[in-house]
């Protein structure tokens, strides 16, 4: 079971190009799709989920064409969109029961056990009888995860699954995804780099509809070994350091500021070597793609995101 994408192109009405002839092969296991907003992640996921027709190119899920064999693809698929809701009048149980019917789980007993199992997995079994309208956004997101795993999908597609979850739920979700990824394809998109770093074995980095990198996390990090540094600096030094080095992250520390950067050599007296992180690789890749003109996105290098 794998997902193959070749020459996939999507042009929306009005000429906005969301995907520029994308080529990707996604093997079983967790696969992270990383990229800034409007990089084409959601478009790609919606095409894989058979919700959007590609303009040209081909995408196959488990060998089935997403354009011509929609029904077969959907049977293999669990999809959680980035933005979604539920019928507020139904209870969590009824909502999942309804969606399970749409997954053609027609046997009542089987449906009940699947729904109960899914609710249990996302820790919502205690509120199964409560109306979805009363749920918090975190609970709704967990219910979204539950509906995606209802039909025991071979391919799980999750668009920004961690947004809106508190740290504990986020850890729980990562564990759940790791558990699910044992024998299936789990594709998750995020713009939070550390989500992928902590669970993704493989990843692709998209930008403006093009794939900048695709492969193992180690393939991305290995070339940076020996090039990643941390320097303790005073605040006024920051602009000079930015000029001299490829800065990948700026943090405040108790004594002043810490800067993560990439460099072949280190001449700064307070600089010391560090293990390269996905943050470093991501920012470096983005900078390289933009011709080195972009400054690193500090908000995405927030250390609190690190699990």
């Amino acid at each position: 079971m794998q997902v193959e994408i070749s020459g996939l192109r999507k042009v929306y009405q009005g000429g906005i190009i969301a995907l520029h002839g994308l080529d990707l092969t996604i093997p079983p296991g967790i696969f992270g799709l990383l990229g800034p907003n409007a990089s084409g992640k959601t478009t790609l996921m919606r095409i894989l989920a058979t919700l959007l027709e590609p303009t040209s190119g081909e995408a196959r899920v488990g060998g089935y064409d997403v354009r011509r064999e929609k029904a077969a693809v959907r049977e293999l698929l669990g999809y959680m969109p980035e933005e979604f809701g539920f019928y507020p009048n139904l209870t969590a149980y009824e909502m999942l029961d309804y969606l399970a019917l749409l997954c053609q789980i027609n046997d009542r007993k089987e449906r009940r056990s699947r729904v109960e199992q899914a609710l249990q997995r996302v820790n919502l079994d205690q509120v199964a009888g409560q109306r979805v309208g009363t749920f918090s956004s975190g609970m709704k997101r967990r219910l979204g995860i539950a509906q995606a795993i209802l039909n025991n999908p071979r391919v799980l597609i999750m668009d920004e699954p961690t947004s809106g979850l508190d740290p504990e739920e986020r850890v729980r979700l990562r564990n759940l995804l790791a558990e699910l990824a044992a024998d299936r394809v789990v594709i998750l998109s995020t713009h939070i780099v550390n989500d992928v770093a902590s669970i993704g074995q493989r990843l692709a980095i998209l930008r403006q509809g093009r794939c900048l990198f695709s492969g193992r996390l180690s393939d991305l990090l290995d070339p940076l070994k020996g090039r990643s540094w941390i320097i303790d600096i005073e605040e006024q030094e920051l602009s000079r350091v930015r000029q001299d080095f490829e800065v990948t992250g700026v943090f405040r520390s108790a004594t002043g500021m810490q800067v993560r950067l990439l460099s072949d050599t280190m001449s700064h007296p307070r600089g010391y070597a560090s293990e390269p992180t996905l943050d470093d690789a991501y920012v470096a890749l983005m900078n390289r793609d933009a011709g080195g003109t972009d400054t690193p996105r500090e908000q995405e290098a927030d250390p609190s995101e690190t699990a």
Partner: protein
Amino acid sequence: MRRPDPPWLPAILARECRLAFRGATFWALAAAGALLAAWRAAIPHASSATAAFRASEAILLGLGVLAIFLAASAAALDRRQSVTQLVLAKPHGSRPSLVLVRFAAVWLSLAALAAIMLAAASLAQVAVGGTAWHLSPYVHALAHTILPIGLAAALGFSLSTIFATPLASAVAAIYWIVIPLTRPHTAVAFDLTLSQHWPMAAFLTAFLLVLTAALYARPIRDRGPGTARLAWTGAILLIAAGAAAYRVAAAGDDALLGPDPVLAAIASQSCRTGPRAPGFWLPDARGRLLALSDYAGRPVVIAFWGPAVSESARYLSALRHLTTGLDSSGITRIAICVDRDPAAMRPFRQDAGPSVVMLWDRGRHFGEGGYWDDSPTAVAYEVTALPTTFILDRRRRLVRTIQGDVSLDRLRAEVTRVLER
């Protein structure tokens, strides 16, 4: 590939109904509708037929508009609650049958609302009217109500799904309100609540639903020229159907029955007060409904006749020449044909001429039995034989009844006497 088992659709229907029935809106509408229907039906001495007719009138006008918006809201439910992508990504999620099942659930909920309203009307009839209760008028009123409401619902449901804007259903609602309020041909042609239009209404409903089902799974922003072609074809077919209906109503010779003339007549007669002649609201040969009140302020000659009576041609001819030579030309002559078939009065039209208003008083049988039960206006005027002539003065008081005599001289003498009063 695994095929869906048969229980899939009923199970989905049950859940769709649960979605439709559980909202607070449904019960609020049911309560408001029940009050409205009970108020319409609560008149002293009202029979079941009167109560059911008056309630069904209110239900059609009120629930028709609501149906459009309820259906539009149900069609947009997935989008409004952002459930669309969850549903569409499921194996069954984009099946056209899902659209039809959702529509069926909306229609069922509307039928349930209509039933609740009629039940309230029935209670009001028993409590205030104090007359015997009969089931058949209520069953008839329910059937007569939910068919056109189904079309209204399909309009709202389809327009909202196809064009993805609530404005579309507002257009449908304006149509629904404006058409019954406009008079003759346009109203008759486009008022799909009229029972004779049911084949066209059924065709349009089916057409709209099939179009909606075909378009349902296509994402709005991704709908290409194919969708536009389909929508244009639909619009052209709708216009063609409307034009055909207009032609039938305006130029055709087929009798259009109007919305239950019998019940309408019964309902209006039961409300009469004082010594004035019973009012009526009856269809002419083309189905156009005319009321006695349309001729207020003029003396009126009402002639009950039947095509089976041998003297009818002479009687109608006398009616035609009645006002020749009389000073006052403001006198109105109404010939009411009492027969099972409205087409039976067609051969007599030449005898009566264009100046005599020819109406038809016959419809479905709802009475307790007996010959005259089928012709409620004749019952209201206590006609015992045909022909019978009634002369009404300018204030609609019944001043002369002439039974049997069909000579022009006798009729003219009586009319002259009335005009001289």
